[in-house]
């Protein structure tokens, strides 16, 4: 009986240790946040940094309240979010479909190989002007920017993972006489879910880049537009406010992908 008691006690101690470590990490995280923003505020008030360029947290907060009040924040935020989410979904979906086609036909993959390399190496943002001319200066070209920036890299990464599925899993199905479609659905795709999810995480960031650059170039609405507008009228409080909002929503999207990950990949104990 006695050793049992001891083990329970030790386990409690171990758990306490874990909790303590977590608390310490949280405290430091909060401290960094606090030091950064209060330092920023003080430096701006004392004119250590130029408040016209670097603004200050209190001014940004004031502007946030104003913008929420007159509703312009939400219309702009809504537009950018819509474009980003759509660009992200289209980019990932098309990339995965393209990867599936390459897996299906190794001849197609051999034929397209040099083109994929070229397209991947090219900075997609440079396509912006052409997209705007082709699709018109509006939602379409911005969404296309958000999608195009992630398609090729998704294709390459997901196709590699399709190819690297353990051949013995396929052998199991082939001994039952499975055709290529069944092999894809039952083995290749589910085995690649972890890779697809990690490309999703990368694509969240990429789609924001595509959409913000797209908005720089054309739009009259959206957070990217607010940044460019703030820059032109030298209102850097507006620029920084938009930046902070982008950071918050990009993080939210990232967490949404993590949630999806936990739902899709159930095997983890």
């Amino acid at each position, binding site marked *: 009986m006695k050793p049992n008691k001891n083990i329970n006690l030790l386990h409690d101690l171990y758990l306490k240790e874990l909790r303590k470590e977590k608390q310490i990490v949280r405290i430091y995280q909060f401290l960094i946040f606090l030091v950064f923003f209060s330092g920023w505020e003080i430096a701006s008030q004392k004119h250590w940094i130029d408040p016209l360029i670097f603004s200050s947290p209190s001014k940004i907060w004031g502007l946030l309240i104003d913008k929420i009040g007159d509703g312009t924040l939400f219309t702009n935020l809504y537009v950018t979010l819509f474009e980003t989410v759509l660009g992200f979904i289209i980019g990932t979906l098309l990339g995965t479909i393209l990867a599936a086609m390459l897996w299906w036909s190794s001849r197609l993959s051999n034929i397209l190989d040099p083109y994929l390399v070229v397209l991947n190496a090219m900075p997609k943002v440079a396509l912006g002007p052409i997209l705007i001319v082709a699709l018109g200066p509006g939602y379409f070209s911005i969404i296309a920017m958000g999608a195009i920036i992630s398609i090729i890299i998704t294709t390459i990464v997901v196709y590699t993972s399709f190819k690297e599925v*353990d051949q*013995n*899993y396929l*052998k*199991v*199905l*082939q*001994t*039952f*006489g*499975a055709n290529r479609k*069944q092999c894809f659905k*039952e*083995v290749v795709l*589910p*085995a690649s*879910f972890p890779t697809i999810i990690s490309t999703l995480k990368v694509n969240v960031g990429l789609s924001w880049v595509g959409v913000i650059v797209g908005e720089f170039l054309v739009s009259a609405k959206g957070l990217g537009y607010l940044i460019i507008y703030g820059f032109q009228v030298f209102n850097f409080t507006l620029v920084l406010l938009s930046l902070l909002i982008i950071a918050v929503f990009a993080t939210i999207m990232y967490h949404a992908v993590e949630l999806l990950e936990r739902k899709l*990949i*159930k*095997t983890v*104990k």
Partner: protein
Amino acid sequence: MSFLSIEKVSHTYFTKDSATTAIENISLTVQDGEFVSLLGPSGCGKTTLLSIIAGLITPTEGSVTIENKQIDRARSYIGYMLQQDYLFPWKTIEENVLVGLKITNHINEQTKKNALHLLDKIGLKGVEKSYPSQLSGGMRQRAALVRTLATNPKILLLDEPFSALDYQTKLKLEDLVSHTLKDYKKTAILVTHDIGEAIAMSDRILLLSANPGRIAKEFQVPDELKRDTPFNARQHHKYSDLFQKIWKELDQLETKQEH
């Protein structure tokens, strides 16, 4: 009339810079309900031969027939078990066991019930909803056996199915597999490099030589050993006799290779 017949099968693998003949001129017949082992050193093309029988590889020469049907028409007669369990980690044990029925489009209430009953009989009751990662190696290999048997194949191809297990689990599984196959009157071909396993489990042993793989010698397992379970067969004095005989033969094959 033989159940499975392999006639003058040869197979060569082609790559960019070589053509390697894995097996050459192999002919063999297997009777209905017989358990045959293919024994040989690595590189003797055991797995190649098994893949050809399973219809996964088309041989460069020769033909394989089951009940006088060409192999591509007899796919559903075959069950294949690999060196490791290769249960799909993203499927539950139940989904894993039923995957063969799903692929062959034979899934219905009755076949599903049979498969789950088999799972029960083999000692895996209550793990249907678990994932493979939650099971031990022996349990996983048993689940793989159920997956193979679920489609009700007439012949089982076993590709060193016990080689990845620890010794104790291996002995237990040998008994279980041998017993299950006899119960369901299945024909089986076992590929192995373990002399003891071949003697304990099979009715007939074919010795293969390497580079390229050919049938070098055939051994009949004495009736006393056939009747016993693999575990008990290992204790029999005739087991040691046969072991010595096969050992010498394998040794000679190797020295012949070196010259």
